[in-house]
């Protein structure tokens, strides 16, 4: 059967080598203006419009992802930098730029069913949640809520006036505000990614001789982990998949705290970094050192 199909495919390919218009003319029974052809022409238009919009959204989503990632890298520098305020301000500027992109997404989706294009924008939104919650954590040492995130994603028409240069196309004056909502699932996935960043933050803060942050972080991560286990498998598949990585991050942070507690009093502060560079698996060998 497969052989038969294969030969059919070959024949078809040979046919396709002919110029298309010529081939259509051969079939004299197909009139280009028939009702069927007219409706298919309108389908063509509809499908193309939809695919174009989808592609534009994918592109925006990728931009959002990249910018959010950069913001996260920037925030990781916060710990070691003496000029903390400056870095926070800079991250705020970067996040504003991301939000402008999200505004463009929201504009594309005016009058559309958000879920129809959700797959295109979901990765970007998750990364944004990660960045924005990371910044929020550094500022306030607590978890940002979905409502809080969504509050920042309400855009007004005045804003649009200010940024005419970036959104010059698609100008229809609508006085009311519009918004983009991060779905609970996107939020959860973003928060799960956040824990990975917090783990990195924990390890690097030890490197800076900061003894308090790791304990604070392990406390916080444990709360998040408890939250995720509470949700368990009521959530979609992706959420439960993240649970495993989350557990690993938590274990790393807890081990770090353990080492700090056990060895912290013995080791001079400036040597803590060395202890952690040979951390986790090498803990046993550490015991043998003076």
């Amino acid at each position, binding site marked *: 059967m497969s052989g038969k199909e294969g030969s059919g495919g070959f024949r078809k390919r040979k046919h396709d080598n002919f110029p298309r218009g010529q081939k259509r003319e051969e079939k004299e029974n197909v009139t280009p203006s028939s009702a069927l052809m007219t409706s298919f022409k309108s389908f063509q238009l509809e499908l193309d419009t939809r695919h174009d919009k989808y592609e534009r959204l994918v592109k925006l989503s990728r931009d959002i992802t990249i910018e959010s990632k950069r913001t996260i890298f920037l925030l990781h520098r916060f710990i070691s930098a003496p000029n903390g305020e400056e870095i926070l301000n800079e991250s705020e500027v970067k996040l504003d730029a991301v939000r402008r992109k999200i505004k463009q997404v929201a504009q594309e989706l005016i009058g559309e069913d958000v*879920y129809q294009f959700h797959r295109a924008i979901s990765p970007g939104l998750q990364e944004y949640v990660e960045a924005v919650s990371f910044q929020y954590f550094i500022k306030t040492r607590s978890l940002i809520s979905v409502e809080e995130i969504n509050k920042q994603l309400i855009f007004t028409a005045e804003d649009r006036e200010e940024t005419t240069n970036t959104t010059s196309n698609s100008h229809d004056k609508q006085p009311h505000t519009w918004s983009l909502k991060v779905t609970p699932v996107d939020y959860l996935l973003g928060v799960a990614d956040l824990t990975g960043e917090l783990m990195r933050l924990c390890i690097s803060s030890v490197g800076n001789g900061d003894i308090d942050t790791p304990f604070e972080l392990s406390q916080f991560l444990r709360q998040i982990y408890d939250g995720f286990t509470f949700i368990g498998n009521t959530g979609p598949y992706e959420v439960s998949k993240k649970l495993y990585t989350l557990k690993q991050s938590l274990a790393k942070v807890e081990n770090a705290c353990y080492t700090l507690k056990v060895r912290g009093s013995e080791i001079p502060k400036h040597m803590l970094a060395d202890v952690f560079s040979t951390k986790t698996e090498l803990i046993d060998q550490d015991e043998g050192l003076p």
Partner: protein
Amino acid sequence: MSVSEMFIALQGVLTADQDIREEIRKVVQALEQTAREILTLLQGVHQGTGFQDIPKKCQKAREHFGTVKTQLESLKTKFPADQYYRFHEHWRFVLQRLVFLAAFVVYLESETLVTREAVAEILGIEADRERGFHLDIEDYLSGVLTLASELSRLAVNSVTAGDYARPLRISTFINELDSGFRLLNLKNDSLRKRYDGLKYDVKKIEEVVYDLSIRGLNKDATAGAGGEK
């Protein structure tokens, strides 16, 4: 708000979501049942005796579409109207199947391609997204492609049953359909995959027409007899 409170709230949202999906699944199951019944009814046309009472079968099938209408009506009440695409996957398959069945009935009755608006009307739903529960264009096109493979089968069986005129008419119809689909720029998705199967249906029917013409059987058919030899 503490972390645990946030997660409790989120869990509530997720559970509510699951409840909606459960409700939708129930209705979709009933819809699938009805769709199977209609299909069984229409499958009768492939049998030799079935060719005589096609109008009667179509009539009966249309009665079943009344059930479909009420079932889709209840599906509409299971979720917020502006979240169609959130749950789309649940009814996508059955809706495509129903489009195919409606298109098959319309083809058997009038030998024309059912329009998107007409399908929407048969199913008791909307053609435009703006007006509520609607028929997605890709689902419509998928259903139409299923019709094409069903018709290529019908062409074969109608020859067996001694109806030599039908394959010629089906051939014209499928060729037009093929030209229609050629106009579309399909993405590399499931619809494209199904479209790739259309050429085999076209080929099959061309072979049937060839077999008939080489034996001069199509001349009888065009004379209107359609009799046995």
